């Protein structure tokens, strides 16, 4: 490495000084995520039978995700469907579906194990919270249509503003995330 190489290196650092930073000021500006980014799980639904109605839940309470989970983060309790008002298309549905977000390693094995494509890893990652028990997410936190994570919704309720997620997915959510929309 001669002195010339040192000068060349100095030139590179100086030229970078005038380049726009590639990082973003995260909470104010949205971070850019790829669609394949594995974040908080979403429990998806089938398309609605009639417009204005919610579709049936895809989850049939089979517990295969819990069996596949390497971190033992998932707890599923199944129950029989009411034939008149079914929650899911199968015989049974998940009465309790909980994921401990502190144990979860976001590996995506639950998504691979799911026979109906019900549990899909979304792109949300802003789940920091104060108490352990608040990080055990139930169905009401993960079903399609729920915006943001638990702390974000709590903050939104407190301040009266809508939930604002801090990321964007320019290419749009994956097709597996049926009905989920992220800011682009």
């Amino acid at each position, binding site marked *: 490495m*001669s002195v010339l190489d040192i000068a060349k290196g100095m030139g590179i650092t100086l030229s*970078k000084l005038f380049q726009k930073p*590639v990082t973003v000021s995260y909470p104010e500006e949205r971070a850019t995520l790829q669609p394949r980014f594995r974040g908080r799980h979403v429990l998806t639904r089938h398309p609605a039978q009639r417009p204005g109605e919610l579709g049936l839940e895809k989850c049939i309470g089979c517990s295969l995700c819990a069996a596949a989970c390497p971190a033992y983060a998932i707890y599923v309790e199944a129950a029989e469907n009411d034939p008149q008002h079914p929650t899911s298309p199968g015989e049974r549905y998940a009465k309790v579906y909980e994921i401990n977000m502190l144990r979860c390693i976001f590996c995506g094995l639950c998504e691979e194990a799911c026979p109906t494509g019900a549990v899909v890893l979304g792109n949300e990652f802003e789940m920091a919270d104060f108490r352990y028990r608040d990080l055990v997410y139930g169905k009401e936190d993960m079903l399609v249509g729920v915006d943001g994570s638990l702390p974000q919704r709590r903050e939104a309720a407190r301040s009266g503003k809508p939930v604002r997620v801090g990321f964007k997915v320019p290419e749009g959510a994956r097709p597996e995330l049926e009905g989920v929309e992220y800011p682009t």
Partner: protein
Amino acid sequence: MPDWLAALLITLLKGVLVALALLTTFAYMTLIERRLLARMQIRHGPNRVGPGGLLQPLADAVKSIFKEDLRVTMADKLVYTMAPIVAIGMALTAFGGIPAGPPGSLFGEDPWVYNLDAGILALLALTSMGVYGIFLGGWASGSKYPILGGLRSSAQMISYELGMGLSILGLLMLVGSTAFVNIVEWQAQSGWMLLFQSLGFALFLVSSFAEVNRTPFDLPEAEQELVAGYLTEYSAIKWALFQMAEYVNMITASAIMATLFFGGYRGPVFLEGLIPGISGWPIIWLVVKIAFFLFLFIWVRATLPRFRYDQLMRFGWKLLLPLALANTMMTAAYLAFARGLGLWPLALLSLLGLLALFAMSDRVRVLWNRPTGRPHTDDALPTRPLGGD
């Protein structure tokens, strides 16, 4: 009020002002350095505290002061506490001798705190005292890593002090005085010393980087590979004082380089045509030149990796010191035999020497960067390739 008391009070006031200015500059240097480093690495840098991160130094200061001041059981309490004070005290004292303007230009007062005939020599002596802070800090921590680090750092600083002192001998011979004001006025008449002593300046620049422990010579704080040396057992405000000393030394080194080689407090003369008297304005030119060198310090830190310790010592002793000696001899010979030719042949000679060194930098390195003291009799021993490592 008697005259001596007035003079004393004015000197005290100037001293306090210089210390405050240095400490404020230190505080904002940390921010500017982090921001610039960040931008050179294509990221934003700290911008959260206050508008644009401007209050970050304040937050850092509050944090340093209120952090727990750890007591090390095996430490020598007195020396352990004194070491950072020695370091910062010497660093602050050294700066006072640097003139920021012509005599009597600051509201009728002299723009320096003290003016010694020994000038640059006294300043080098004071900055050398900073080694005591480092070494005593390492020794008094009562732990193995700090003492090793302290020894390492003192060895480095003492080694490069030689090259530093020798590299300005030619300059002193040319000027014939060690007082800063004389050096600056000489440059005002004959042109910047950089022209006549370019080789000397290059050597001085490199040794200043080593003297103030900045990249690529920042072995004393090589946390990743050498456990931070003498700083290991220090925390909170004592650690901050060491950091302060380092940055103040950096400012002092910039000021010395500006004064010795870049015309000091005198501005460029060609600006006189636009605004008469501009080159004689106090403080501003020195500040501009210091800022330039501080930027250079940061820029180099953003670019170059660290030396390995043996490379560092070899570089100091086998390249810098002989070259500084050669530069001294060259200047001395020129002054003895060819003084009648004027200064420009010397400038050319110096520049040629520097360019030759640059051009041959790859070949010269083999001469100095060869491991010594290793028996080469046994061929089975793996030996490192010459140079290039």
